[in-house]
């Protein structure tokens, strides 16, 4: 995705002032955090054991990625399917468009796929005369509003019921304007009816894949709505689009990860639907796609192998990290200006989109580490963010003046007498400005810092001076 993560500071500030977004973000605790905690508390095996299994499976898969992908390809081909390798977003778009054009497809239904967001597929299809229709309810809603997903599991998380009603009334022009749409069941029923027509009319279906299984050439999708299955089963052609890192060796590995995924994402033991797709329909099958294509996207992933950021490729896209992140919880997903928000994005987006565009995302962290404690595959997220910060500094990103400023400070800080003199002067000035008040509410030229903070008035004497004064009374 072309990011504007360079606007992150402004976008974050705007998000903090956005009252409707702030209202939506209050749902993170009830909607996600508590449900996840309850699910793992109810599970007979301790979370620490489970996530060590998950980490081991993902780590082992990454260490044999090439072998597994080739095995997967052979299995899919043996079943009569096709595998395509896309180096980057442009190649991914081109391959998918070509498959659709070759099959004469005009309308395409889509299951939820963050990878297709990453490669910005929908505008490209539209520009090539192919109409993509999102079928996941959250994705459908944001497609109507021309917005991007704000969360990898709940794309419409930032919206309210009234936003959905407004969008449906505007888009579903054929329906009676006087109809009632004032509650969620009515909205869901309307989406069900409208999208059912699209499912039946579609020439092709595109889904993502939560996991790929090398041993059997299987792609797995996990949904609660059933939209992914209607997307891929009704039309002649099914295209799976996913990242190369999603692969595991065996079905048994996927089974362990599925238990971690559903609990971590929505607090469910299992979703309503888990579907295992292993090629096109067999000759005598009652239904199923005649054409089965899997597009494997690299787009920077292989470049992360062997790097200090490799572990981010273990991600199973549960969203737990962003659900628990105080920064994401304060600003939501859009402010990040990149495909993947939250701690996942801070660790992954620099590898996919480059540091020049995304340098601020690893900085949007106090390293509290909550993300790491809930990650079901034990990705060392803060260590990876620190790696990106080091990279940015040593490469002079965003600008060498930033590095120069830090070096200047370091020069002073290494000279204790100079440092003490400078901070002593500053402390005396701040005390003068504060007067009788215990806190400063503003300072000239620093109003930005003060919009959300106060500064405590410095004490009359510094620790250093007090220590020098009283040192005589302390025996070592």
């Amino acid at each position, binding site marked *: 995705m072309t990011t504007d993560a360079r606007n992150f500071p402004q976008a974050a500030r705007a998000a903090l002032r956005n009252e409707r977004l702030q209202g939506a973000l209050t749902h993170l605790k009830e909607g996600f955090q508590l449900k996840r905690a309850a699910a793992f508390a109810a599970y*007979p095996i301790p979370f620490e054991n489970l996530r060590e299994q998950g980490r081991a499976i993902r780590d082992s898969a990454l260490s044999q990625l090439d072998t597994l992908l080739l095995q997967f390809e052979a299995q899919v081909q043996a079943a009569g399917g096709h595998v395509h390798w896309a180096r980057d977003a442009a190649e991914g778009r081109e391959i998918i468009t070509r498959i659709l054009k070759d099959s004469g497809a005009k309308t395409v239904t889509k299951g939820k796929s963050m990878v297709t967001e990453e490669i910005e597929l929908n505008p490209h299809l539209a520009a090539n005369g192919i109409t993509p229709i999102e079928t996941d309810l959250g994705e459908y809603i944001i497609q109507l509003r021309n917005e991007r997903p704000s969360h990898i599991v709940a794309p*419409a998380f930032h919206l309210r019921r009234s936003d959905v009603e407004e969008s449906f009334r505007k888009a579903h022009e054929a329906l009676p304007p006087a109809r009632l749409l004032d509650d969620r069941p009515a909205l869901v029923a309307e989406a*069900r*009816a409208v999208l059912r027509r699209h499912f039946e009319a579609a020439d092709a279906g595109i889904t993502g894949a939560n996991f790929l299984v090398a041993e059997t050439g299987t792609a797995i999708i996990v949904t*609660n709505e*059933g939209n992914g299955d209607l997307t891929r089963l*009704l039309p002649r052609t099914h295209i799976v689009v996913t990242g190369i890192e999603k692969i595991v060796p065996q079905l048994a590995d996927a089974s362990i990860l599925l238990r971690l995924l559903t609990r971590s994402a929505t607090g469910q033991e299992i979703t309503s639907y*888990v579907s295992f797709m292993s090629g096109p329909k067999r000759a005598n099958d009652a239904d199923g796609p005649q054409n089965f294509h899997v597009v494997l996207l690299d787009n920077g992933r292989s470049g992360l192998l062997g790097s200090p950021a490799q572990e981010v490729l273990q991600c199973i896209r549960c969203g737990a990290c962003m659900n628990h992140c105080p920064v994401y919880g304060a600003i939501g997903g859009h402010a990040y200006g990149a495909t993947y928000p939250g701690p996942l994005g801070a660790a992954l987006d620099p590898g996919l989109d480059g540091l020049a565009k995304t340098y601020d995302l690893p900085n949007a962290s106090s390293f509290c580490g909550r993300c790491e404690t809930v990650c079901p595959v034990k990705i060392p997220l803060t260590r990876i963010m620190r790696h990106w910060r080091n990279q940015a500094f040593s490469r002079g990103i965003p600008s060498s003046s930033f590095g120069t400023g830090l070096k200047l400070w370091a020069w002073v800080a290494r000279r204790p007498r100079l440092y003490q003199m400078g901070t002593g002067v500053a402390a005396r000035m701040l005390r003068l400005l504060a007067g009788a008040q215990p806190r400063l509410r503003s300072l000239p030229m620093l109003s930005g810092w003060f919009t959300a903070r106060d500064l405590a008035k410095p004490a009359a004497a510094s620790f250093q001076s007090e220590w020098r004064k009283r040192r005589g009374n302390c025996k070592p």
Partner: protein
Amino acid sequence: MKPVPDYILPAWTADAAAHFIGKSKASVADVHEIAAPEEAPEAILAILTGAGLAPRLHLPAHSPLNALSWQRAPGLAVVQGLPSGDDNAFSGADYGIAETGTLVFLSGPQSASSWHFRPGREFVLLRRSSILPRFEDIIALLSAEGRMPATLNLVTGPSRTADIEQTIELGAHGPRAVHILIAG
């Protein structure tokens, strides 16, 4: 397929069928136990009339379910062909998974995979002897077959979404209700 690695798996004390029923109900499926598949027609009619619903049911063409004693439920109109979004539909599950109250459907000549996503209300016949403890047991059976079906669906309860204000609503695209008849 290679042998299954030695992962830690959940265990429980109840027998597979009892555990299945508990988990299935928790997933908002409606579960009934019948003595034999022959009792299914009457059971389905009773459920529909009890809920004040039209006694009409879609059956998959060429399915062995067509041979059940439908004459014992004369009020029930049985139709062939794919159900639409407000219809009732009946099918047989290949297996059940006790761990999560999950139904397992394999694609085949007599079983359309899309069947389970089309209707408004799904009725499913599941033999008690087909209920296995975990998905790993299904994998073992598939290993013996030597290959995966083109599509394998795990279905647990009705379709649902929480995409509007993080509140669950049923019947997003798949069935709004699932009734499981456990026979045997």
